[in-house]
């Protein structure tokens, strides 16, 4: 076919379409190029339009054949054989755009270019750098690596200490401990276990009443009762949903160059929390996030939920002022590949963008096979790259429409026809400004302006911006419609070429859309991508299939990590060679298989783990074990763990009696200005919601580059990248926050007020109560004395009521600041 095409006159054009730069031009033409054209390009153009400069002006490159024919934002620079088309000649002639800017080239040089284009623009410059090599990855060999082999349910091993295990998990753990000469720690006391499991499942400390009830329940079923109750509480989803939001790099503004708000991100957040609370099977959880828009739905509600789930693909941090449109598209795709592969497969497929993966058997072709899927998908984040007016980045047309009645909430203006009309007018005006050429708008606005259009392009652009800003400000007055969400939809389905070294201007062969080969099984069928679909649905099904060796393992490991503070594979987001191998492969496989057997139920897996003996044992130090396994890789004890910032904040509010358990309607971000970029300091500077609202922390808006102070101090993860395992640092800013922040003092005061309202309690009883509330235990006699002495020293006179209250507040605060409160044992 290709050979035949070669006989047609539009040979070159077809070559271009096919992305096959393999012409064999006449040697005379090449010589002409080398003597007359290349030197001029090199001298006058490459500095601004060469691949040496990452951000070529106008988004185009003149130093490769592909680049010069592809052109930039205003179309191809050169169309071989056609001197009327292409932007290059016009620019050289100084018609419109004047190039090069240093001065018009002599007419004889321009005539050379004309001649060259007329002869078909022969151009020997092969875009491929000399050192570029097609893949050498041996995928077959790569499949031998542990993570690419399917998990197999292990045989239950024999253990010496046969009374210790309560179930299979314990047997697998104990067998390994015994083989390593380690001994499991003794069981934690019941109070410690209750505090541990309550914090782990809900992110809150247990109340003294819950504690009493559990201690009094002598039934062997007492543990199960607690766990079932915690799993059924809405607080479970708020805690575990947040874990997933770390993985999903959830945020409510886009960050980077133009930090505009993403007012509908909260819909995805709520969807995640609900998914955990409803125990949505994990395979389904994957399907909806990647391809919810393509799934059948029996009700409008289900359809809405499916659409909202695809917000996963639209939440990334993108640079809205990226100059090169192709680069931007590929950066978006890259972000989606990274998020998807790290979240579900714990693989860093993104590393294969510019070259074969350096460590894992992932060839560049695999990357572009996945890239094709996302290139064929349209992201609807509500934001767009570089609008002409440079202000209307927020674009309502770029969102998913939900099947919800409009005007039922703060958007009730939508029911008012007058307002509705004005709103539409404004939107249309902004749309026009966004897409029409600057000149046309200026003409139009000039007609109504009293002054003539200014000649100065900088000033006129600034003026245009002011006009659009005016429109945007008026739009800001209308509360946003509620029936929208972030997400994706199908775009134009097409395969993409391998981008050599990631450069969108240097293309190699085209790769059919597909997945990571090493995770596929040879000869596996059922995931063929048709010509009229992106392939997202197949990708989702391929990820969520039981034969995928990674998917179940990765999630089971994430769950284990959150319950023990350390994964069986400690590098929870990287199961590749640069990650760590599993410390107990049989245990990991057991959990993975079990997870799938129980219909991918997160709750059932968590239940089994927290009811194990391995989970129940204490954090006690043991010299001998510590010598053999200082990092507790084999789980001979529970790990003492610093509470996450959300658990610290929520528990403090809870103890103070101020925690608001209701889920806020939407997010305060819905009311932020869309006319301004948060990064410019001209917009609504986000206030510190962590201290100004009493919702659970998962509902505090996450604004990129404007994280709450408390979040920054206590290692909240950077919300632009998948982060399944948070850092834990210990720095004085944490101490300063706990002892000096007015917010912490407020919680202490509120708690003290409630405490003192209980009539006729003795000082000792009150101290006991404070210990139970904050540390979930009774004070020792020494601690009691110490507390009494402290309270005495803090109040000048016993009788004075205010003194009394502040003394107790300071006591509460001391316990809030204690390491024992900040850690869960």
């Amino acid at each position: 076919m290709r050979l035949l095409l070669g006989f047609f006159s539009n040979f070159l054009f077809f070559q271009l379409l096919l992305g096959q730069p393999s012409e064999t031009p006449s040697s005379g033409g090449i010589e002409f190029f080398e003597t007359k054209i290349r030197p001029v390009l090199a001298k006058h153009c490459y500095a601004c339009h060469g691949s040496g400069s990452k951000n070529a002006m106008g988004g185009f490159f003149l130093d490769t054949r592909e680049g010069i024919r592809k052109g930039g934002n205003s179309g191809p620079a050169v169309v071989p054989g056609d001197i009327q088309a292409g932007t290059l000649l016009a620019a050289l002639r100084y018609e419109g755009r004047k190039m090069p800017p240093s001065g018009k080239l002599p007419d004889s040089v321009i005539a050379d270019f004309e001649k060259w284009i007329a002869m078909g623009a022969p151009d020997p410059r092969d875009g491929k750098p000399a050192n570029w090599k097609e893949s050498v990855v041996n995928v077959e060999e790569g499949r031998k690596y542990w993570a690419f082999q399917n998990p197999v349910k292990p045989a239950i091993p024999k253990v010496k200490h046969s009374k210790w295990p309560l179930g299979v998990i314990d047997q697998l753990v104990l067998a390994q401990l015994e083989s390593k000469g380690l001994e499991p720690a003794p069981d934690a006391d019941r109070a410690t276990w209750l505090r541990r499991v309550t914090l782990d499942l809900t992110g809150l400390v247990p109340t003294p009443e819950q504690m009493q009830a559990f201690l009094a329940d002598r039934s062997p079923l007492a543990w199960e009762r607690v766990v079932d109750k915690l799993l059924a509480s809405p607080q479970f989803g708020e805690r575990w949903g947040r874990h997933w939001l770390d993985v999903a790099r959830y945020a409510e503004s886009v960050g980077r160059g133009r930090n505009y708000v993403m007012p509908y991100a909260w819909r995805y957040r709520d969807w995640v929390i609900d998914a955990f609370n409803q125990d949505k099977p994990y395979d389904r959880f994957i399907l909806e996030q990647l391809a919810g828009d393509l799934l059948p739905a029996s009700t409008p509600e289900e359809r809405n939920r499916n659409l909202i789930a695809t917000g996963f693909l639209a939440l990334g941090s993108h640079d809205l002022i990226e100059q090169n449109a192709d680069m931007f598209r590929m950066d978006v795709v890259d972000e989606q590949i990274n998020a998807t592969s790290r979240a579900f497969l714990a693989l860093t497929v993104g590393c294969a963008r510019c070259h074969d993966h350096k460590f894992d058997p992932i060839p560049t072709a695999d990357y572009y096979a996945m890239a094709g899927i996302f290139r064929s998908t349209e992201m609807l984040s509500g934001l767009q790259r570089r609008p002409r007016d440079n202000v209307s980045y927020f674009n309502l047309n770029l969102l998913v429409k939900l099947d919800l009645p409009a005007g039922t909430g703060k958007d009730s203006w939508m029911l008012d026809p007058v307002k509705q009309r004005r709103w539409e007018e404004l939107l249309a005006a902004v749309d026009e400004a966004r897409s029409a050429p600057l000149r046309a708008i200026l003409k139009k606005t000039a007609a109504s302006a009293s002054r003539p259009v200014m000649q100065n392009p900088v000033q006129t652009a600034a003026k245009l911006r002011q006009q659009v800003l005016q429109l945007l400000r008026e739009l800001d007055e209308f509360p946003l419609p509620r029936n929208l969400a972030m997400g994706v939809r199908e775009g134009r389905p097409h395969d993409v070429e391998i981008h050599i070294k990631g450069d969108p201007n240097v293309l190699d062969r085209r790769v059919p859309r597909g997945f990571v080969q090493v995770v596929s099984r040879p000869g596996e069928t059922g995931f063929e991508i048709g010509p009229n679909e992106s392939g997202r649905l197949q990708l989702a099904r391929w990820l969520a299939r039981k034969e995928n060796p990674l998917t179940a393992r990765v999630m089971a490991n994430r769950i284990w990590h959150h319950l023990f503070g350390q994964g069986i594979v400690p590098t929870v987001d990287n199961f590749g060679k640069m990650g760590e191998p599993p410390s107990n492969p049989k245990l990991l496989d057991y959990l993975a298989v079990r997870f799938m057997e129980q219909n991918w139920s997160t709750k059932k897996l968590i239940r089994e783990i927290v009811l194990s003996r391995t989970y129940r044992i204490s954090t006690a130090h043991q010299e001998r074990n510590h010598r053999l396994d200082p990092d507790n890789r084999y789980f001979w004890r529970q790990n003492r763990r610093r509470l996450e910032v959300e658990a610290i904040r929520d528990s403090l509010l809870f103890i103070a009696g101020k925690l608001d358990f209701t889920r806020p309607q939407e997010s305060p971000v819905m009311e932020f200005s869309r006319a301004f970029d948060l990064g410019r300091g001209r917009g609504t500077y986000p206030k510190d919601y962590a201290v100004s609202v009493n919702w659970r922390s998962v509902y505090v808006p996450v604004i990129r580059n404007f994280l709450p102070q408390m979040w920054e101090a206590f290692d909240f993860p950077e919300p632009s990248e998948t982060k399944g395992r948070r850092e834990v640092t210990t720095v004085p800013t944490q101490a300063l926050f706990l002892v000096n922040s007015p917010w912490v003092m407020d919680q202490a005061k509120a708690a003290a007020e409630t405490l003192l309202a209980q009539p006729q309690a003795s000082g000792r009883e009150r101290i006991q109560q404070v210990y139970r509330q904050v540390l979930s235990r009774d004070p020792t006699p020494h601690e009691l004395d110490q507390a009494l002495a402290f309270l005495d020293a803090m109040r000048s006179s016993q009788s004075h009521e205010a003194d009394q209250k502040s003394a107790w507040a300071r006591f509460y605060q001391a316990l809030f600041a204690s390491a024992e409160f900040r850690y869960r044992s």
Partner: protein
Amino acid sequence: MRMQPSGLGVLSRRQLLQSWGCGFGYLAFASLASAASNYRSPLAPRQPHFPARAKRVIFLFMQGAPSQYETFEYSAELASAAQKSSSLMAPAFRFAQHGQSGHFISELFPHLAKQADELCILNGLHTDSPAHPQATIHLHTGSFNFVRPSLGAWVVYGLGTENQDLPGFITINPAPLGGAQNYGSAFLPAAYQGTPYQTRSGKLPNIDNQELGREEQRKQLDLIQSLNRGFLEKAKVDPELEGVIESYELAFRMQSAVPKVLSLKGESDAIRKLYGLDDPQTRDFGTQCLLARRLAEAGVRFIEISHGNWDHHSNLRQRIRQTAREIDQPVAALIADLKQRDMLKDTLLVWGGEFGRTTAGQSTDGRNHNNRGFTMWMAGGGVKAGLRYGATDPVTGAAVEGKIHLHDLHATILHLLGLDHTRLTYRYGGRDFRLTDVHGVVAREILA
């Protein structure tokens, strides 16, 4: 063992050893091997890879991109080229030679001109993006495509800091463009992020207790620490808990150390005058410069101060005169003051913006963005004083001689601090990351 230093325990000794690139961590932690349970602050001073020429950095960030042709790049060729081409704009101010070095400095900087011999002027800088936000983030983190740790965070990660009562990286009045990313730690532990300080607020967040007197607070702290020690006793061994105990003592000391170092009360009238605090035009940046000196003196590793308003697309002649006026005397004072305290020799000053401006004029009295050629200067710690290095093409404005890409700039700054930019690595997401990624060449020509 390959592992990210996170998860359990910040800085279990083992994780530190694993994550500090190529084992210079081993050296620093040799002493810990014998006392396995001792907590070590992530900010404790660490040995550099090789002897350092500078102990600390003061980065004077000029947001908006100052025009090199009106400040520190003397280009007679541009003046003559502009006579031939109407699109070019001749330098708007006179340049004269100063000092032994004969540095050409524009008339906008009469005070700095007196410090000419201290300056190492770099006229061949270039960077990748001509857009302010991207270039600002690029300059601060080495990347604009991804969220990466900032230069200051890398430096403190590599070297720790000398004064444990103060943050290791302080940024005064940080530029709004790019926001927290400019001083963030990204995937490095949060301990390395910069602490922003707003001169108008006058204090760091939570640095003082608004309710308790010092004595009362000590009592409360004693109770907290007694609880903590009890908890540690039960735990027997836990470096992280030791870290918590240590962090409270540090915090207590910070409460007095930080306000002291941020207060200018003890500075003499002569010093205030030197920095221009008596003049409303220079007071703002003068205050920042004086604070920078105080922080440097107190042992802060990385200090950034900022001044905006350099984006002169129009009315350049009038506006750049004003902007230059605001910084000229304060910056000259900082150099003089460091010199008289014998601190200039091991303090590295870096002055510059995110890119430069074009040779071509814009709206008759302005210049557009130019990322392909711009000027920065350094002074102090280990650079060749009096050197002028590099040049831009008088027509295209692109750096043509002595080219220094911003990755090279980063490599050079690290080098002066005794850090090899190819060895200062951190493992994250399956690979070792560097400030300079796979780029960067130390500009050896400018080293003293």
